[in-house]
C-alpha cells in the first residue's frame, strides 16, 4: 500500500487536486484487485486516489434509449437492480459467478473493466451486452465501444489520469446468458466463460452477441460466431456449428489455471449450453 491515499469528494475536486499528487498514482475504487496486488507485491504506486464514493460515478440511471451504470456502482447493487435485470440480462446472469458475496459488496463495475483482466466476469458480459464506456479526463469526456477499450492483459485505452464514468447499454429487448467454468463451484477465476445476448423473434434469433472470457488477451467479442448466428433458428445443427466456429475464434493459453486445448473445447461446450438455454 502506498504512503498516500487521497479521497476527493467530487469530480471537480479530483481534477483540481491531480497536479499536486505524486507522479505514480492510481485510482482506487472497491480495492478488491488493487489491494490484492499490493499484498502480492506487484503494485508499487506512490499514491492511490480513492474514487469509490464519487457521487458522479455511483448510480444506475435509466434514460429514454439507454441504461447508464456508473463505474462506482457496487456489483451487489447491480445484482438487485430491476433496470439492470431488464436491460442487461447477460450482465446480471454473470453476477452470481462474480467472486463472492463479500467481494461483490466492495467491487465495482468500473474497477472490473479498468483492471483489464481477460477473465473479468463483468467486463466479458458487458461486451456481450454491446456496452459503451464513458471516459472523463479533467472535464473532457469521450465514449468508446467497450470492445475497443481493452487492448491486452492489464492494458486499456485509458490515458493518464483518465477515469471511467460508467457504462451505457442501449435499451433493447433481449435475452442473455452467462456460463462460466471455474476451478470450483463458486468463487474462482474462470478457465473459460461465455456471455451471450440475443434478440429473439419467434423461433429465431435476430441479432446475437457472443463474448468469451479467459480465452484471449482481452474479454473477446466473438465477431464471426455472432455474425453466423444472426437471423438463424436455434436448431441443434446451428448450435453445433456455432460451437465449432467459436472454437476457432479463441486463442487461450496454458497457465496455472488451465490448459489451452481444454479451454478451447470449453468455449464450444459453454456456448452450446448458453444457446440451448436461450432457445
Amino acid at each position, binding site marked *: 500500500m502506498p504512503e498516500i491515499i487521497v479521497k476527493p469528494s467530487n469530480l471537480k475536486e479530483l481534477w483540481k487536486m491531480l497536479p499536486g499528487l505524486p507522479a505514480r498514482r492510481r485510482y482506487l475504487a472497491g480495492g478488491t484487485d488493487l489491494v*490484492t496486488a499490493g*499484498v*502480492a*507485491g506487484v503494485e508499487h504506486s506512490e499514491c492511490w486516489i480513492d474514487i469509490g464514493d464519487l457521487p458522479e460515478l455511483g448510480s444506475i440511471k435509466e434514460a429514454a434509449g439507454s441504461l447508464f451504470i456508473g463505474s462506482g456502482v457496487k456489483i451487489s447493487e447491480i445484482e438487485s437492480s430491476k433496470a439492470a435485470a431488464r436491460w442487461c440480462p447477460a450482465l446480471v446472469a454473470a453476477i452470481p459467478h462474480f467472486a463472492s458475496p463479500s467481494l461483490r459488496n466492495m467491487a465495482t463495475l468500473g474497477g472490473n473493466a479498468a483492471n483489464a483482466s481477460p477473465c473479468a466476469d463483468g467486463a466479458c458480459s458487458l461486451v456481450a451486452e454491446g456496452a459503451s464506456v464513458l471516459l472523463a479526463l479533467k472535464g473532457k469526456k469521450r465514449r468508446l465501444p467497450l470492445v475497443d477499450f481493452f487492448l491486452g492483459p492489464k492494458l486499456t485505452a485509458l490515458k493518464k489520469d483518465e477515469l471511467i464514468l460508467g457504462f451505457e447499454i442501449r435499451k433493447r429487448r433481449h435475452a442473455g446468458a452467462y456460463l462460466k*467454468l471455474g*476451478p*470450483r*463451484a*463458486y*468463487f*474462482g*477465476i474462470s*478457465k473459460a466463460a461465455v456471455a451471450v445476448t440475443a434478440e429473439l423473434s419467434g423461433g429465431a434469433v435476430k441479432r446475437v452477441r457472443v463474448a468469451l472470457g479467459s480465452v484471449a488477451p482481452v474479454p473477446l467479442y466473438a465477431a464471426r460466431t455472432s455474425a453466423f448466428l444472426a437471423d438463424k433458428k436455434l436448431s441443434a445443427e446451428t448450435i453445433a456449428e456455432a460451437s465449432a466456429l467459436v472454437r476457432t475464434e479463441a486463442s487461450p493459453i496454458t497457465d*496455472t*489455471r*488451465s*490448459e489451452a486445448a*481444454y479451454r478451447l*473445447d*470449453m468455449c464450444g*461446450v459453454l456456448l452450446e449450453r448458453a444457446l440451448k438455454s436461450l432457445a
Partner: protein
Amino acid sequence: MKEKLSYIGRSLPRKDALIKAVGAAQYADDREFAGLLHAAAVRSPRPRIKILSISDARARRLPGYVTLVTYRDIKGVNKWPVVMQDYPFLPEKEARFAGETVALVVAATARAARKAAALVEIKYRELPFVEDPLKALEKDAVKIFGDDNVISSFVIKKGSVDAALKKAAYTAEGEFSTNYQVHAYLETQGAIALPESDGGMTVHSTTQCPFYVLDAVAAALGIPYHKVKILQTVTGGGFGGKEDVPALVASHAALCAAKTGKPVKLIYGRKEDFQSMSKRHPGWARVAYAADKSGRITACRVNYVLDGGAYSTLSPIVLWRGTVHAAGPYKIANVDIKTYAAATNKVPCGAFRGFGQPQVCFAQESLIDELAEKVGMDPVQFRLKNLLEPGDRTVTGQKLNSSCGLKELVQTVRKRSGWDKKAKPRAAAGDVATGIGFSATYYGVGLGAKGRYLDRAGALVNIYKDSSVGVNVGNTEMGQGALTVLAQIAAETLNAPYESVKVEEVDSSKVPDSGPTVASRTTLMSGNAIIEAAAPLRERIFKTAFSLLSAAGADASKKMVAAGGIFSMGGKSVDFRKVVAECWFRRLKMSEQGWYAAPRTTFRMEDGQGDAYVIYSYSADAAEVEVDLKTGVAKVKKIWAAYDVGRIVNPRLAVGQAQGGILQGMSWALYENLIYKNGIMVNPNFTDYVIATTADKPEYDITFIEKPYAGGPYKAKGMGEVPLIGVAPAVANAIKNACGARVNSVPLLPEKIWKELKKVAAR
C-alpha cells in the same frame, strides 16, 4: 458393558467456542507488549544460491529501522534440532530453496520491517538445482543431499513377491502421483519473543508442538532449557503445518529479541507462509497387486517416493508412516515395499493430516478397484474378502487385537450408501454421469516405533481452594477440540462439574516434554496422563466425600454414587465444591502430576517386520460423484463414512473432525494444485491455489462404530487424521465408476478427466 459416565460420550459445548465466535481469542498477532519491535524475513529469490554477501546499507536509511540479523548473530549451534540436523536456523553459505529465510530485519513497525526486508541486498551466485524428485534419485542428478539425494528410505519385506506374481491368476499394476497440499490454516505462522532479565527468553508461539519450539529456541540462543519458556497462543489451525516449522519462526523471533534486547514480533504474510512453511509431500507410487483365482490378494509390491524438499525436517517419519500403511488394510502374505524421500530444491515438506498415508492410499486403493475388476468381483465384496480382522497379521506381521471394526465399517457404509444397487454402472442423464466409489483404510494411532522415544505425555491437575480445576498438558488445542475433550476426561475422573474444569494452552514450564501434538495422539496420550494425575486426587476426593456423607448420617451400607459433580449415598448428597473445601481443610494434596508412556513396539527397520504401532483406527468411505461428460467437472454429491476410533469422547466434536477431514480430503483430491516452475512457486496465494468452499461441500453420512481400546482413556483411540485418508481414492473410484475415466493423479482436475474421457470415447 459400558460404564456409567457423566461426561464421556456427551456433546458438551466447546470450551473455546465463545471466545472464538466473538473474536475475543488472542492469537499471536493480537498480543502487544511495551517496546515491541517487529521482524521480517529476507528470503532467497532463487532455488539454490551461494550467498556472497548480505547488505542492509539501503535499509539503514529507512525510518524506524533497527538492525539486520544473520547467522553471525547465532550464539548457539546453527542447526535446527528436528529429526536430522541439516537445516540451519539461518544459512551461512548456501540457501537451498526459493523463499528460504536468509536473514531477518528488525524495525519499529511491521510495515517498516517489511519495507526494510525488501531493501536488503543479497549478492549471490546461482547453483544448479534439482526440481523433480524422481530425477533427483537418478545417478547423474545434481547432488544436494548426501551422495544420492536420499533423505530417508525404508523397506518392508515378507515372503516372495516375485514367486507370488508369477503364480497369480490376476495382477494389477499402476503408477500414481499426488501433488502438494497447503494447510491453509486461517492464522499464518508467527511468534513473539520477550527477552528476560536473567538472559532467558519467553516465547509466545502459534504452534502444535511447544516442546519443539523449546528445543529450537534453546539451541539457537545457546541457553539452558530452564531459561526458556514457551507459551502457546490460541492457535488458528494447524493440520500438521504447525508441527515443526513454528520452531523455526520462533527461533528467528528469539534471535532478533536476543540481539536487540527488546520484545520482537514476527508474523508471516500469506505469501511467505506459502513459499517457506511446510506442505504435504507430493507423492509418487508404483504399485502392483496379485490375486489368486478366488480373489484372495497374494502379493503387493510398492515403490513409493516422496518429494522431501530442500531439508529433511519431518520427511523420515512421514515416509515411515506411509511405508507401514502402503499395502492397505489387507491380509497379504507376500510384500515388498521400498520407499524413498528425495531431496529437491523446493519448500521442505512435513506433516499434514494423514502424514504420508493419503498419497500412497490414493495409489493402492485406486488399484484395489482395478484388481477387483480384473478378478470380476464387486469392489466391496473384493475388499471384504481380503480385509484385516481381529487376530489377523498386518504386512509388518503385527497381530491385531479386538479393537478392529474394519469389516463392520465396510458393511455399514455398504448398507447406508445403497452400494449394492448403485455399484453397477448407470446410464448418464444427458451430459451428467453418476458413479459411486469405495475405499477402506487403517491408521496407526500415535507415533509408533519410529517415534517411540517421543511417545510420552505429562499432565498437571491442580484443584484450587474454590474447587475450580486447572489442567495443564503438553499437547495443544489447534481447533480440533483438545481443550474440551481433555476437560471432559478430567471432569469424569474427578467427578468435577465440567464447567469447573479449565484446560490451558501449553506452558512449557508447567509440564514435562509431552512430544508433539500430531498423529491423532492427544486424546490418547494427554488423556491418559490426566487420568494418571487425577487418580490419586480422585481417591482423596472420593474418600472425603464418603466421610462427609457418613458424618451427615448417610446409610453407609449403600454404595456411594458419584455423577455430574455430585456424590450421593443412602439418601444424602454433597457436591464437588464442598468436598474440595473439606479436602483443603484437611490439608490434603490437591495437585498432582501425571505421566503416560506408550507401550513398546517391536518394529525392525531392517526388514520392516514387527509391531509398528500400538493400536489402529479404521475408516471406510463411499463417495457418490457426478461427472459432467463434456467438461470433465466432477462434483462429489455425498460421502458415506464409518469410523472405528474407539470410544467417542464428544460426539459433536467427532462429527466435526469427520466433516472437516472429509472436506479437506476432497479438496485435495479435486482442487488443490500448488505449482512450481523452474524451482519457483507460481501460485503462493488463495487466488490461484484453490481450496474447496462450503458450496463444494458434499452431503455427509457419518457413522461411528466404537470398538473400545482397553489402553485408551475411557477406551478412546485417536481420530484427527482418519477421516481424510480414504477420501481421494473413493472419489477417484467413483469417477471411474461414473464414466470409465481412471485418473491416476491428484488433484483429479477436470482437464485430466476430460483427457481420459476422450480416451474412453476412442475405445
